[in-house]
């Protein structure tokens, strides 16, 4: 055999042994699976609370109570302008001096929930305002109350428009659960990183990366379908 080919094979073997080490992967697989559970749990709780609170805020905003709306706009703007990691760090490292020590899970959940709340409020609000004024007037003139008009006439039309941007935003924010690793949360990245430092081998990171892909690729593919179905633009 040519010496070049021998070197290439040796290099390839070393690469596989380093990054796809079966022994190391087998050893840390349970850790990564545990981390995956934490990531899924966190992501589900963020999506439910974030979108739920966002919808509530948008509905409150529709009541058009001036001082309340200023407050909502201020909070939403603030949460859209701050990097999520800054909020997580502020809660985790800052709040203890105010007498409350939230766990890594709590800090990450609360931060990302607030961020998703802000973005979804904006999206819901944009959807609500996109419904023409005449629709409100027509519905009210048939005798529907404000609440009935909102729920039966405006929201069904508004929500259709919000689906595509909301899906995109939700994916981007739930991917942010990886930020929890900075505040000692044992989600996928956290588990993978500590496995790398324990084993002096990067294979657990590859395993962790694979776990993220397994979780999120289906979501992204579904999102792509939704996007074409409920296109935001013509």
């Amino acid at each position, binding site marked *: 055999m040519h010496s070049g080919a021998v070197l290439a094979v040796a290099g390839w073997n070393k690469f596989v042994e380093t990054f796809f080490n079966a022994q190391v992967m087998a050893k840390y697989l349970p850790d990564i699976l545990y981390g995956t559970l934490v990531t899924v749990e966190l992501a589900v709780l963020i999506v439910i609370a974030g979108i739920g609170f966002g919808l509530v805020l948008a509905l409150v905003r529709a009541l058009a109570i001036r001082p309340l709306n200023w407050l909502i706009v201020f909070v939403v703007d603030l949460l859209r302008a701050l990097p999520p990691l*800054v909020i997580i760090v502020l809660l985790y490292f800052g709040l203890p001096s105010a007498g409350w020590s939230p766990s890594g899970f709590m800090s990450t959940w609360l931060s990302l929930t607030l961020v998703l709340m802000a973005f979804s409020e904006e999206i819901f609000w*944009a959807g609500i305002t996109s419904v023409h004024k005449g629709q409100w007037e027509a519905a009210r003139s048939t005798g529907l109350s404000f609440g009935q008009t909102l729920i039966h006439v405006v929201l069904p*039309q508004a929500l259709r428009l919000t689906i595509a941007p909301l899906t995109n935003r939700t994916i981007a924010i739930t991917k942010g659960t990886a930020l929890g690793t900075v505040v000692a949360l044992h989600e996928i990245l956290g588990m993978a990183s500590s496995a790398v430092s324990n084993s002096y081998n990067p294979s657990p990171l590859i395993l962790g990366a694979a776990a993220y892909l397994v979780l999120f690729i289906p979501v992204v593919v579904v999102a792509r379908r939704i996007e074409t179905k409920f296109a935001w633009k013509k």
Partner: protein
Amino acid sequence: MEEIVANFFNAEIATAALPLVASGILNTILLSLMVIPLGLAAGLVLAVLAQSKNPLVRWPLMAWVDFFRAFPPLVLLVLLFAGLPFMGLELGGFACVAVAFMLNNSAYYGEVLRAGIDSVPNGQIEAARSTGLSSTQAMTYVVLPQAVRNVLPDLLSNTLEVVKLTSLGSVVAVPELLFAARQAQSTTFNATPIVMAAVIYYAMLWPLVRLLSRLENRALAGRH
């Protein structure tokens, strides 16, 4: 109340942390100035390639975009920062951020720009070509300016996210704003520097947030 002020809005600590935090601002700006053009350039390449009718080009592109939409940027960053040294390649935090965010953003900017190019009617390209412009010239002078204008809110929105994303640099020891604030916080045992960082991010990015909010509302107005 006094305790809150002492722990979160401590003027003495803010003054002491100021030089460190100021250098953090500078690095955040530098990092953004590096990452945004890299992402835009990579995204533009993807968007132009996506115009191809050849499935051998389209399918890998779609896979690339979906891959990076599914992959958390922090995981990508840690993979480069902690993984590459095992191959004897040590890039350093700054370069890792550049590469990781370029890959991540190629997908996001790429999708936005692709939608922009798709929004320009075919007749425009045909008209431009019939005047004697080459296809590259037609793309550069006719299609892209309109494409960018059509998706400007999405481009800006993504750019806002990119600037916020630079805070991940703190995880790989790039001395940007959040890293500087955390350093000051851990030496003073006081949260004031992190509050400072939050206020600075807010001050820098709030105008963009407001602008976006307006553009988004306008894009939706009158759609029913």
